[in-house]
């Protein structure tokens, strides 16, 4: 991994959605800063987990880095090419190298097309003529993702959620891309089906060397599948690190709180552990707090956190955090310093 160059390099990516006043004038009165200056790199064949709560901008970031949403600012380099300044038309041939898998297997497949047509569409759009014809290629793909190849004439409504997600995966890998942005690919699925799809994604990655940006809110799933993980909050990356470091020695208070909030499926462990319970809700991304965006919920916040936004800086090899007062000493140290567990919700 070390000597190769990143397949995707994103610098200071921004995506603002304008807020206009009501009435005829529709004046621009502000922005929802969904993604507010994130930088990351993805190596060929690796999985970068992008994790955060709803509204943190992770899905928007995933789309903006493929220019499926037009970014407001920043740099995007894909396989060494600057795709930020590229004309949309020139981007088309590159699209076969970067694909997307969506969360909702119901709305991301055209109900009026057979799944043969859906999975074969990338060949037509890109003008690729696979050996042995499109139908054979489609059936090979169906077989590869665990669908019955004889079902190519059926419609999406005839398949279950897990099978539909396999259809979406077959479509995404049809042209052997180098990068797939997976936007919550398993969160609509039941746990037993979720495990099947996660295994399929891993197998396909091993086989074709595809890099994934895996956008998800489920920290357990992200830990399972990712090589590196970036934690987002209110449009910014709070912490990023190799998986092991992020989960065992997180330094950002938000990462601590997030990890601590996940219930462990092991009653003895779950009931014995100390929890950090955050107060309040996510602030609005149209009016984020000044200084550090996490300061409204952080138990360590001091004056500096309200005046100066921390930058994402490298604390140790590959481990970056945006915090003025990063934790040291791993997960247990925090349980002692953090506010007591319990139900003090009155503040905020």
């Amino acid at each position, binding site marked *: 991994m070390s000597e190769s160059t990143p397949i995707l390099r994103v610098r200071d990516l921004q995506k603002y959605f304008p807020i206009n006043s009501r009435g005829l004038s529709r004046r621009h009165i502000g922005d929802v800063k969904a993604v507010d200056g994130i930088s990351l790199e993805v190596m060929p064949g690796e999985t970068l987990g992008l994790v955060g709560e709803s509204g943190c901008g992770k899905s928007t970031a995933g789309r903006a880095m493929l220019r499926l949403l037009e970014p407001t600012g920043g740099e995007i380099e894909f396989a060494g090419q600057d795709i930020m300044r590229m004309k949309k038309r020139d981007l088309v041939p590159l699209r076969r190298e970067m694909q997307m898998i969506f969360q909702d297997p119901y709305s991301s497949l055209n109900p009026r097309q057979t799944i043969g047509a859906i999975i074969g569409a990338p060949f037509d759009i890109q003008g690729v003529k696979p050996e042995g014809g499109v139908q054979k290629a489609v059936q090979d793909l169906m077989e590869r993702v665990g669908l019955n190849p004889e079902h190519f004439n059926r419609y999406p409504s005839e398949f279950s959620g897990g099978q539909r997600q396999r259809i979406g995966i077959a479509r995404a890998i049809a042209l052997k891309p180098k990068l797939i942005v997976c936007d919550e690919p398993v969160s609509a699925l039941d746990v037993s089906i*979720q495990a099947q799809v996660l295994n399929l994604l891993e197998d396909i990655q091993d086989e074709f060397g595809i890099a994934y940006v895996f956008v998800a809110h489920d920290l357990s799933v992200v830990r399972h599948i990712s090589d590196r993980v970036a934690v987002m909050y209110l449009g910014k990356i709070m912490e990023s690190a190799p998986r092991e470091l992020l989960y065992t020695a997180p330094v950002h208070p938000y990462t601590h709180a997030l990890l601590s909030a996940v219930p462990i499926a092991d009653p003895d462990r779950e009931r014995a552990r100390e929890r950090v319970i955050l*107060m309040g809700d996510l602030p609005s991304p149209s009016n984020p707090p000044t200084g550090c965006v996490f300061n409204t919920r952080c138990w360590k916040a001091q004056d500096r956190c309200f005046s100066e936004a921390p930058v994402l800086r490298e604390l140790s090899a590959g481990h970056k955090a945006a915090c003025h007062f990063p934790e040291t000493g791993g997960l247990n140290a925090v349980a002692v310093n953090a506010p007591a567990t319990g139900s003090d919700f009155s503040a905020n």
Partner: protein
Amino acid sequence: MTQKNEVLLSVRNLSVSFTTEDGEVNAVSNVSYEVRRGQTLAIVGESGSGKSVSSLAVMGLLSGNTSHISGEVEFDGQQLIGADPEDVRKLRGNRIAMIFQDPLSALHPYYKIGDQLIEAVQIHNKISDSDARKRAAEMLDRVGIPAVEQRLDEYPHQLSGGMRQRVMIAMALINDPELLIADEPTTALDVTVQAQILDLLRDLQKEFGTAIVLITHDLGVVADLADDVMVMYGGSAVEQAPVREIFYQPQMPYTWGLLASIPQVHVNSTRLDPIPGNPPSLINMPAGCVFAPRCTYKDQVPNNLCETTKPDLEGTSEGHFARCHLSSTQRDAIRVANNIGRSS
């Protein structure tokens, strides 16, 4: 006063089916369970397992025109199935309350939060508007909603998802119910908010002694809150046991599959071991064990028994029941060989 450990809700052989154009859908078949005062029973299962339908039937919330309900539901000695709907209505929202998954669709969008809470009080109690409002304010404060007076005059859309779920909980608990049915109460919420709500439920249970039926698909939530667990699959209860037994001594291959399917946040997992195949159609139920089509151990049972005969719910140890034809020696061997149920 009432005793702890006394059985509050007793469900016997509950079956629910729906008539549809495609045929009879057997959503729940022959489910029995008990809930004791102050205890939490978690009903675990995937979509279509019948976990929600069974509790809607308990609440008397299924329309008699489309559904067929049989069996017995006894709440504190009172039979609810076949009872006068008016009698059941008097219990509902009063002694038995329910929280739904999606607070946005469970709260009325046109009415102020205060009015909805006040209605919930006044429908069961003869008290003045001002007293009811006072009670509503107290309850909102208790569930951790700041600026209560202002919130009472707001509409549901003005609150965040976590706040709305708190309003739902406040409304459910406002008449001090003995039984709370919580149907996926945290599924729509972010993890940090989920942690707040789970904590709140735990505290409120301690304070008011409410019994909880917790319906969920999340084994982490089960491990956190449950005293007893019922695992449902294809409309049947396939395993019932105290919470530690379910996680450390599971007896049924479907439960094994569930436990092996979930990645855990506190350890690096190498490869997941999913259950092959898909859940059964509730219209064409398998003739034998509901789980047989997906079970990898059915070949160990002679005479094709799993495919032909539905296993009974049999006791495997004190308070632990499982629906499986495998012998206990076979199950022990499989558990040891696959490292199932060990705490990691």
